[in-house]
């Protein structure tokens, strides 16, 4: 069986990169004593994958790990053992046991919901006011970082929802294996719209990873 488990990447450890998060989960699984499956080969490692890598500097509320188990384990036991084995900043909230043949998660990923907390209050009002104007545009140009260069792209079709209140911006953005609107790209475009030249510090929290159900609705990825 496989276990799809929802975990948090807390604010204190938001600067930890994806590779280190992966290793920390591996070690957590080893500490848990749960019957996990190992790869074959010279350096055996636990069979665990992640629905999506989270950027260094971002927090995550509902990140998803996909663990292959060597034996059947109940979801409650999995959760309990893992929460004892994981640090305070990486606790699990849900687990769902699925069949080994359950589709792999990354290809099912469609979107992510983000909370963007504007650190400098003086910019918050201006930025939030600029949202309707930006969304009314035909295209929203932004710079996308590729491995070798910066490429201009249009993020308009990559934004499902964008709204703001107080110091928070709530964004539902496209996130698939092929394309994504990263929160940084969105913030750049929004700053331009608001006429802010300085760099605005934002605390990014990825709130949810979403896939599409049979009716075409966006639903939590782990529920598919």
């Amino acid at each position: 069986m496989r276990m799809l488990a929802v975990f948090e990447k807390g604010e204190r450890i938001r600067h930890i990169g994806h590779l280190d998060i992966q290793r920390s989960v591996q070690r957590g699984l080893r500490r848990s004593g749960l019957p996990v499956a190992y790869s074959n080969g010279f350096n055996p490692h636990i069979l665990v994958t992640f629905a999506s890598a989270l950027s260094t500097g971002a927090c995550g509320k509902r990140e998803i790990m996909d663990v292959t188990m060597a034996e059947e384990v109940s979801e409650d036991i999995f959760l309990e053992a893992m929460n004892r084995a994981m640090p305070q900043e990486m606790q699990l909230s849900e687990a769902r046991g699925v069949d080994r043949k359950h589709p792999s998660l990354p290809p099912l990923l469609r979107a992510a919901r983000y909370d963007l907390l504007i650190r400098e209050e003086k910019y918050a009002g201006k930025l939030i006011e600029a949202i309707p104007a930006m969304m009314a545009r035909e295209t929203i140009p932004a710079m996308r970082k590729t491995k070798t260069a910066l490429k201009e792209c249009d993020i308009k079709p990559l934004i499902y929802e964008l709204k703001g209140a107080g110091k928070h911006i709530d964004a539902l953005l496209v996130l698939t294996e092929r394309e994504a609107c990263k929160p940084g790209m969105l913030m750049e475009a929004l700053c331009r719209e608001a006429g802010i030249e300085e760099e605005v510090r934002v605390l990014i929290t990825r709130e949810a990873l979403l896939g599409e159900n049979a009716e075409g609705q966006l639903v939590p990825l782990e529920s598919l």
Partner: protein
Amino acid sequence: MICYMNDRFERALEKVQKAPRYTGGEMNTTVKKWEDCPLHFGFCFPDTYEIGMSHLGLKILYGLINRESWSLCERFFMPWTDMMALMKEEDIPLLSMESRHPLNTFDVIGFTLQYEMSYSNILAMLQMGGVPIEGKDRGENDPIVVAGGPCAYNPEPLADFIDAFMIGDGEEVMIELNRVILERKEEGLSRAVCLKKLAGLKGVYVPSLYRVSYHNDGTVESVEPTCPEAPVSVVKRVVTDLNSTYYPEKFPVPYTEVVFDRIMLEIMRGCTRGCRFCQAGILYRPVRERSLMKLVDLAEKLQAATGYEEISLSSLSSGDYSCLPELIRELMKRMKEKRVSISLPSLRIDSVLKESLEETQQVRKTSLTFAPEAGTQRMRDVINKGVTEEDLLEKVRDAFEGGWSSVKLYFMSGLPTETTEDLDGIADLAQKVVAEYFNVPKAQRAKGLRVTVSTSVFVPKPFTPFQWAAQDTIETVLEKQEHLKQVLNIKGVTFHWHEPYVSFLEACFARGDRRMGAVLKKAYEKGCVLDGWNETFRFDTWMEAFRECGLDPAFYANRERAKDEVLPWDHIDSGVTKQFLWHEKEKSDRTETTKDCRKGCNGCGLQRWKGVCAYANAGGV
């Protein structure tokens, strides 16, 4: 819980390289409620997070202090230059990893002294933490600054900065010291009274209670206590039984990769070999072993608590552990299913059992390290490295036949009496190792031979038979390295050498006196920090600091001492007598070896701890 997480610190974290060095929250760290603990201990590792988190002593003392209900221990590390600059710019003090309290809010600040080149970091950490750098400037509200570790055996260069040194094993004296400082806090003892009380603890040296006088030639005339509480000689602490001594059952597990990212199982303390260059071999005497059952139990608990993939057996000479094959077999048996590999980091070439080599390989194959230390038998006899060429080649052959293809060989250059012949011997040995590889039939040996030869520059250390010896001058070292580069131009061999400049400065501090404190402070004020790192080490600035303080570094590094000279550390008692060390020095001069203590007591002085040294003969030599 986090009482000092302000926006300035957060902003700095967003700008620095490797922010996780500063953010904490690791598995198995302890965050006690500040108000619930009357005594706050700030454990300072005077180097970066990656180095500090690899250090076993930190894990032991961290667990030990936090175990007591009345004390808490939080960690501090030396920030990298980028973070230091930001902290200065934004006026952010040095903060603890756990609760982010500034350094000066702790009652005790404890530095571990692992190597001399971390000394400038101590000054930097104190200053960043808002603690007056010099002891004499600290007031009633300032913390007590203490230090321990191998470099504390010559405390003099740090006497101006450290209030009290702990000499020897820390497990017992640490708690005794904390109790005195708790008393200071609860009963409002003055700083002066507290320091005198500390001086009364066994194994504690309070430098401000001693007066040092010098001869006209700059050598020490005497070191004398100025009050009855301070003992004439400070005798090191020794824990008598490792099985009943505290050892942590969990280690903090960093999120990021650190230098030693694995379980370290200290199987024994001390070494009976008596290599004459080795300071640790003297300081950690006598040999004490943990029992096999205790080790297996600790290994299982630590594995379950950390999830680490690797266990390394740690000690000065793991091959000498009395039931090593049984231990390895038992650990392999219990760890196999958990996919944990066992590694032996400081293999001594004359004690490796072929059988255990094969067992190590069962899970994972790494490169093998040998430390012949010198290239000729004569030189090895001078340093009492009881290893022969035949021993080494036999072990190397075993390794190549067993499927290893990567071998590291460690040597020292600049040992007393070294000649060109001894340097050529290093190349000769490397050549023979290569030949052993090609002697193994092609079908049987692993591909890709890699022999790495590393030479370090010999640094004479206090409490060794070479404590009277002169270090080679930088010019001589450079000439020797040039020669080695030529003779080690061998196919299949890579040659690494250490820059002599750091070793020269290390030699100055290793055998420095109290006047070195001024040089340290001057160099720090001129911007020297992180001297252990190539990219930040500023040799010229250090030399300027010596000149401005009117001291000659060659006086410390390159001068041979006379037998009757009062050495700056003579008032510290390492357990081994000066007489024994001098006797060893004379034997070295005659190229005579000394037997391993296991073959009979050599009378080094540890007999005084009755029953602690298993090989002691009360009669001595």
